[in-house]
C-alpha cells in the first residue's frame, strides 16, 4: 500500500519489476509494430521481379531515373518516369511536386506501391540534402555495373558535376 515499503530489498524488487514489465511491454510493442505496415522493403527494380512483389504492397524503390524517360501528363501534376538499376526498369507514376534534386540520370528514392498495371505509384519522392547527393540505396548492385557518373558521384567530383549542370 501507499504506506511505503519497509526494506531496500523490496523497493529494489518493485523498481526492477516495473522496469522489467515495461521492457517486456516494449518488446511486444516492437514485435507487433515491426510486423505491420511500418516496415518497408528497400528494393531496386530487378529485385521487384526477383521477389515477386504483389500489387499494393508498400515499399521503397531506389535507382536511377532513366535518361529520356521523364514526361508530364496534361494535368501538369502527374509525372511518369522510369527507375532503373541497369538490370531491370520500373515505370513510376507520381502526382505532386517533385523535389528540388530530382533530375534524369540521377538517383532517386521513391515510396509507394505497384498498381494493377504493374506501375509503381509513388506517394513520395524523396529528396536528398547531403553534401554528396548520392543516396546509397540508389546505387546499382547488378553485376553488369552500369555505374553512372552522377549516380555514384563522390565528394571530389560531385559538386563539379553540378557545375556542369
Amino acid at each position, binding site marked *: 500500500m501507499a504506506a511505503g515499503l519497509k526494506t531496500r530489498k523490496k523497493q529494489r524488487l518493485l523498481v526492477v519489476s*516495473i522496469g522489467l514489465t515495461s521492457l517486456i511491454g516494449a518488446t511486444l510493442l516492437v514485435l507487433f509494430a515491426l510486423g505491420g*505496415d511500418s516496415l518497408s522493403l528497400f528494393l531496386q527494380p530487378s529485385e521487384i521481379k526477383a521477389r515477386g512483389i504483389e500489387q499494393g504492397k508498400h515499399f521503397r524503390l531506389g535507382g536511377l531515373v532513366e535518361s529520356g524517360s521523364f514526361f508530364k501528363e496534361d494535368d501538369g501534376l502527374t509525372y511518369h518516369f522510369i527507375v532503373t538499376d541497369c538490370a531491370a526498369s520500373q515505370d513510376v507514376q507520381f502526382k505532386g511536386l*517533385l523535389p*528540388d534534386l530530382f533530375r534524369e540520370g540521377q538517383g532517386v528514392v521513391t515510396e509507394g506501391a505497384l498498381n494493377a498495371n504493374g506501375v509503381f505509384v509513388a506517394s513520395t519522392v524523396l529528396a536528398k540534402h547531403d553534401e554528396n547527393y548520392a543516396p546509397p540505396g540508389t546505387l546499382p548492385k547488378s553485376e553488369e555495373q552500369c555505374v553512372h557518373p552522377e549516380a555514384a558521384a563522390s565528394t571530389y567530383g560531385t559538386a563539379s558535376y553540378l557545375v556542369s549542370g
Partner: protein
Amino acid sequence: MAGEIGHFSLIWVLVAAAIGAVLPQIGAVKGDTRLMQLADRTAYVQFLMALAAFAALTYAFLVSDFSVSNVAANSHTLKPLLYKISGVWGNHEGSLLLWVLILTLFATLVSWRGAKLPLRFRARVLSVQSLLVFGFVSFILLTSNPFLRFDPAPFEGNGLNPLLQDPGLAFHPPMLYLGYVGLSVSFSFAIAALLEGEVTPLWARWVRPWTLLAWVFLTGGIALGSWWAYYELGWGGWWFWDPVENASFMPWLAATALLHSAIVVEKRDALKSWTVLLAIIAFSFSLLGTFLVRSGILTSVHAFAVDPERGVFILAFLAIVIGGSMALYAWRAPKMVPSGLFGIVSRESALVVNNIFLSTFAAVVLIGTLYPLFVEASGAGQITVGPPFFEYAAAVLMSPLVVALGIGPLLAWKRGKLPKAMQIVLPALVVALIAGLALVWSQSGGVVMTAFGLGLAVWLLTAVFAEIASRIKLWQSPGNAFGRLRKITRAQWGMSIAHAGLAVIILGVTVSEAFTDEQLLVMAPGDSTMVAGHTFTFDGVAPVAGPNYSAVRGFFTVAEGDDFVTTLLPEDRVYSNPVMNTTEAAIYPLFTGDLYAVIGEAAGGNRWSVRLYFKPMISALWAGALMMMIGGLLSLSDRRLRLGLPTGRKKIAVKESV
C-alpha cells in the same frame, strides 16, 4: 598563412589534451596537488588553441582562400557573408572542428564555474573531458584535416549546397552541437564519480545544471532543424523519423530522463547507479549520432560524405569511450548504495515512471533506427522502418507518461497521497474528457486518436495550471494568491512552463496532423481556390534575382471572405554555384494556423503547378519547444541551481581519501 596557424593550433590542442588527460588522473591517484592543478591549465590552453584553429578556418572562409581544400570544396566568392561563415561548419571537417571547440569550451566552463568543486574531483572530470578532446582532435588530424592545402589553388570554390544556405540551417548545427557536446560534461562527471566510487546528492546538484544547459540547446537544435525542414523542404512535413533525426532525438530523451532522475538523487539519495548510467547513455547517444551520420552505415537524407576510413576510426573511438565507460560502470556500480526509501505513491515513483517510459522510448527508437542493420546483417535484404512504427511507439509510450506527468508534481516526496492529488487534478480530467468528447461529437466519429491527443494536451495543460493554483492556494484563499505567486521559485516556474510546453507541442502535433487542408493543383493567373476557408488567388509569376541565385516568384493573394489577409510569395530558386534548385515555401502564420504556398514548375499555357496548405496550429510546435527552452533557462537561472555553485548542503561530498 591562416591555414598553417590553424593546423599548428590544432596540434597544440592535441598535445594539451594528452597532458590534460593523463597527468591530472595520475595526480588524483597519487594525491599530487600540482599534477591535479594541471587539469585547469590544460583546459584553458585547449580552449584557446581550438579557438585559434576555428578562427583560422573561419578567416580562410571569409577571405575565400581556396588554397585551403576545405574552403575550395565548400565555399564560393559570390556566397553571402552569413553562408561563408556557416560554411565553416556546413561540412564534415569544419563541423568536427566546431565539435572540438565546444568540447574545450565546456571543459573551460567547468574549470571556471566549478572552482568550488573539490580539486581531485574537478581534475578527474577535466581529464575525462581532455580524453574526449584528444580522441576527436586525432580523428581530425588523421582523417579529416580541414587545413589541407591545394597547390596550385583553384580560382573558384565549389560552393555550398544551396539547401544549406538558409538562416535556419546556419544555426541548427551549432545549437545541436552545444547540446550534444554539453552532455559530455554530465558524462565526465559520471565517469569521475565512478572513479571516485561515490555518488552523492551534491554530485547530482553539480550535474543537473550542466545537463539542463545541454538539454536546452538540444531542444533548440532539434526544433530549429525541424522548423527548417518545415519551410525549406516544401512539403509541409516537419519530422520524418529519419535516422539522423532519431540520432538527435535519442540523446534528448536520455537527457530528459537524466534531468529527472538527477532530481531523485539530489533530493532523496536514491537511483544513483541508474543516474550515472543514464549520464553515460545520454552522451553515448550523442556519439552514436555522430557515428551514424558520418559512417554511412544507415541510409539517411542528411548524411555527410561517407568514408570507410573515417567510419572505422569513429567506431574504434566509440568502442573505447562507450565500451570503456560501460565496463567501468559494471565494475564500480555496486559501490553506489542507495539510502533513500520511498513509497509506491510518491514523487520519486512518479519520476521513476518518467524514467522508465522515456528510456524505453529511447530504446525503441534505437531499435527502430538500427533494425535495418540487423535485417541486412541477417541477409534478408534492405528495409526501412517507416514513420508509422515510431508514431505508434510514441503514442503508446508517451500517453501514460503524459497522464502521469499531470499527477507527478502534486505528489509529496517519500510518501504521497493519491486521493489528495487526484482531488486537485480532477477538474483537469473533466476538462480533458469534455474536450476529447466534444471533438468526437463535432466531427461525428472517426477521429478517436485526434480526440485522445487533444484530451491529453488539455489534461496536461490544465493539470499544470491546477498545480500552480494549489501551490498558491488560489481556491482556498484567493485574496493572497497573487502574493504567493511571487514566492514560487524560478525552478518551479521552469518546471511548469516546460511541462506546459510539452502540452502545447502535443496540441500542435494533434491538430495539425488531423486538420491540415492540402490542395495540389495547376493554376493560371486569375484562378482562385479555397483552402480551409481561405481564398487563394494566383496573380502570376515574375522572375527575381538574388545574390547567387535567380528565381521564379509566384504571387498569391489570400483572402478570408472579403477581407484581404496577406500576399504569399513562394519562390523556386536556381542557385548558380553549384547549380541546383531549391523551393522556398511562403508561409504566413495566423493565430489559427499557417498559410503555406509552394510554387512548382510551369505546366504549359502559363499555368503553374502549385501546392497550397492550411496547417492549423502548427506554430504550437515551435512555441512549445520555445516554452521548454524558456523553462529550462528559468530553472537554470534559479540561484540554487547555478552552474557548479552548489550551496553545499553536505560539505564533504567527495571523500579526500585515496
